[in-house]
């Protein structure tokens, strides 16, 4: 186990959990239900999101064995059948409206066992979830070729005209009935919306009118594959042709291992509405040339070109030295669709070398460090406010609509708040426009603490602003609250004076700060003042209105102060 963990770590995989079927059921349903479940050890492995070739056991084992130099990377071959003998998939023009692209291939004389069969189905599901974006971009269908006969037609028809027996059902249904049938199915109902409201649904027929599938929902029962299937017709339909090609390549390269002629795939011809034809799978092998100096430089190692070529070959990128020994030619197999730039090749070389074998060095870059003035001011104020006897709080920037509007006696439209489109709970509906609710909620959660409670926070609030490039901006606010048996307006006022003193702003009207009595919806009438400095209003202070206090579930009087500190940077 330790060894395997090490290997995964080096290769770039995460061994998440070592468990067994019995353990899984125990955890989810209790030990009783787990009796009789398999005890064989299961490894849960996390695969990086861009390595589609490692999503199934076959690919994973192949990759690791090449990495450990136990086997050579297999060469995937495309066999083009003699003229007229290959399978053909004809695409009609109706599909353009709903699911324009399709690719196909054949796995000839394949040998399935229960494990391989399960793995085959599993890979399709994983690809559906990953690169196919839950079947929206590409949908995979695999069919028993011996139950059908080509040429096949991929077309689109009105729902009422499509009728067939879906997989594992006992009778025929029309497409509209199928939609209703699977509306409650926990697995398939998520895909119904992909075609539900279109006028035509995609469907694949064979030459006798037998339905292979109605992508992306479900295959026909007639063509379902089993452990005894010998010839498989694979088709991928979708809205993204690049991804459809990658998906097809992955499936056939992975499972052609079990064909009678290992790693060989029989090609199929796709005919487009305009008459053009294309042979699939592409199984393209791309050649890239990379200079060994580049690889060495980027990683910080110095390996000879031939050892670099060996490292890359271990990562399934067959390479050899060319030129006068100053160039490396790399062949990128169809399983490595994630290699799109020389830097991807550099990373693979580094992985093969072993990240932890690279010498760590410090860059010789000389730079002068600077603190952002706004943050510097915030840090300085923080220390002095704590010295004044106030405790700092750090609260959430997202809150509910009531928090910044109704509970403070204001209307939400007056707040210019930024609104979230998809909050998971009501607590995260808007971004805060004031720090006050956060502090009041903090007090509410700490009512048992001894009085007085003196809290402050210096943090960002968010408001809409049409002048910025995104339409909103942050302001750095400072807010303090004093919660006690008596409201303590004089204490909050004193704190304001102290802050102004620290900011070196004199208490006069021309070049300093003043306060003027005003009304505020959150404040007690006659106990509220607006603070002016640097020619603008920067905030308010006062005793909070009893309504506000009650709405935040507090019971004692409270005074508060909130100002924008950005003008003082």
């Amino acid at each position, binding site marked *: 186990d330790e060894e395997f963990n090490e290997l995964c*770590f*080096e*290769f*770039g995989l*995460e061994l998440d959990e070592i468990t067994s079927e019995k353990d899984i059921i125990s955890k989810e349903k209790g030990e009783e239900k787990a009796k009789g479940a398999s005890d064989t050890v299961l490894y849960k492995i996390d695969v*990086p999101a*861009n*390595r589609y070739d490692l999503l199934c056991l076959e690919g994973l084992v192949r990759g690791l064995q090449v990495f450990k130099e136990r086997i050579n990377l297999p060469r995937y071959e495309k066999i083009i059948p003699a003229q007229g003998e290959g399978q053909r998939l004809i695409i009609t023009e109706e599909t353009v409206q709903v699911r324009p692209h399709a690719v196909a291939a054949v796995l000839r004389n394949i040998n399935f066992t229960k494990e391989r069969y399960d793995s085959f189905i599993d890979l399709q599901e994983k690809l559906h979830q990953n690169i196919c974006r839950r079947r929206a*971009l590409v949908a995979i269908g695999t069919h028993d070729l011996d139950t059908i006969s080509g040429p096949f037609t991929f077309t689109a028809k009105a729902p009422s005209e499509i009728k067939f027996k879906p997989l594992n059902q006992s009778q025929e249904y029309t497409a509209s009935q199928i939609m209703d049938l699977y509306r409650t199915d926990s697995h398939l109902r998520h895909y119904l919306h992909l075609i539900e409201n279109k006028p035509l649904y995609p469907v694949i027929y064979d030459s006798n009118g037998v339905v292979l599938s109605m992508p992306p929902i479900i295959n026909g029962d007639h063509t379902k594959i089993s452990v005894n299937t010998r010839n498989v017709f694979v088709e991928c339909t979708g809205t*993204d042709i*690049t*991804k459809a090609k990658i998906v097809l390549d992955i499936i056939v390269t992975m499972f052609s291992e079990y064909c009678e002629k290992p790693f060989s795939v029989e090609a199929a011809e796709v005919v487009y509405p305009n008459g053009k034809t294309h042979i699939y799978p592409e199984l393209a092998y791309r050649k890239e040339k990379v200079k060994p100096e580049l690889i060495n*430089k*980027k*990683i*910080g*190692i110095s390996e000879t070109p031939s050892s670099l070529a060996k490292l890359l070959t271990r990562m399934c990128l067959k390479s050899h030295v060319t030129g006068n020994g100053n160039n490396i030619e790399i062949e990128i197999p169809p399983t490595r669709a994630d290699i*799109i*730039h*020389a*830097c*991807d090749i*550099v*990373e693979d070389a*580094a*992985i093969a070398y072993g*990240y*932890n074998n*690279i010498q*760590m*060095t*410090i*860059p010789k*870059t*000389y*730079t*002068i*460090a*600077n*603190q*952002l003035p*706004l943050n510097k001011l915030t840090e300085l104020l923080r220390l002095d406010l704590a010295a004044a006897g106030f405790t700092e709080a750090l609260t959430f*920037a*997202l809150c509910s609509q009531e928090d910044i509007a109704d509970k403070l006696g204001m209307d939400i439209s007056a707040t210019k708040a*930024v*609104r979230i*489109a*998809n*909050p*998971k709970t009501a607590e*995260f509906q808007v*971004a805060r426009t004031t720090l006050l609710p956060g502090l009041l909620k903090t007090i509410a959660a700490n009512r048992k603490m001894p009085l007085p409670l003196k809290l402050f926070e210096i943090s960002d609030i968010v408001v*809409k602003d*049409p002048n910025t*490039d*995104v*339409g*909103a*901006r*942050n302001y750095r606010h400072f807010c303090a609250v004093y919660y006690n048996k008596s409201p303590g307006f004089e204490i909050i006022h004193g704190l304001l004076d102290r802050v102004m003193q620290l900011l070196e702003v004199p208490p006069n009207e021309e070049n300093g700060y003043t306060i003027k009595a005003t009304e505020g919806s959150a404040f007690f009438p006659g106990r509220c003042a607006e603070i002016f400095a640097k020619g603008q209003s920067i905030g308010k202070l006062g005793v909070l209105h009893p309504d506000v206090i009650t709405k935040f579930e507090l019971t004692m009087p409270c005074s508060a102060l909130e100002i924008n500190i950005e003008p003082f940077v």
Partner: protein
Amino acid sequence: FTEMPTDNFVESSFWNFDALFQPQQHPARDQHDTFFLQDPAEAPELPAGYTAKVKKVHSQGGYGSQGYKYEWRLEEARRNLLRTHTTSASARVLYQLARQEKFSPVKYFSIDRVFRNESLDATHLAEFHQVEGVVADRGLTLGHLMGTLRQFFTKLGITQLRFKPAYNPYTEPSMEVFSYHKGLKKWVEVGNSGVFRP
């Protein structure tokens, strides 16, 4: 290391994802992981010339890359969201650096809040803080990155480090940094890093 300006929680998909080579069909851009905004829903302004370059690299490739080869849509890039990582601020800063007349090496850092649309539990919050560092210079290597990280973590008192290959859409090579936690008696992930893609 100089501090980067990060005082904008609201970011456009362009700076948060597209400029960082994260494809528009990537799961992280889904409703599930990102807080998209209802109001303001779209960013009014995006840098025109740069946007055209980003579009080309995603859909056709460029700078030595094959690209993703899909249809890149401007409306998708305009969608506003609450930033999911402070790397969007790094992207802005690097863009400014690129527009300077003469290149000067820089080291930037930031520590600020990010937002992810996740349910709260013992190890996950919807809002949390990230520490981010960027070094830009000629001739930097993976070894330099590892060295810098080692020094950084040593100052935090974390000395046992191992590096694991990882994947980020915008860095290649990428590494996750693991440290041995004596209390839990196992290696835990303490950071993520990488060399920005050309």
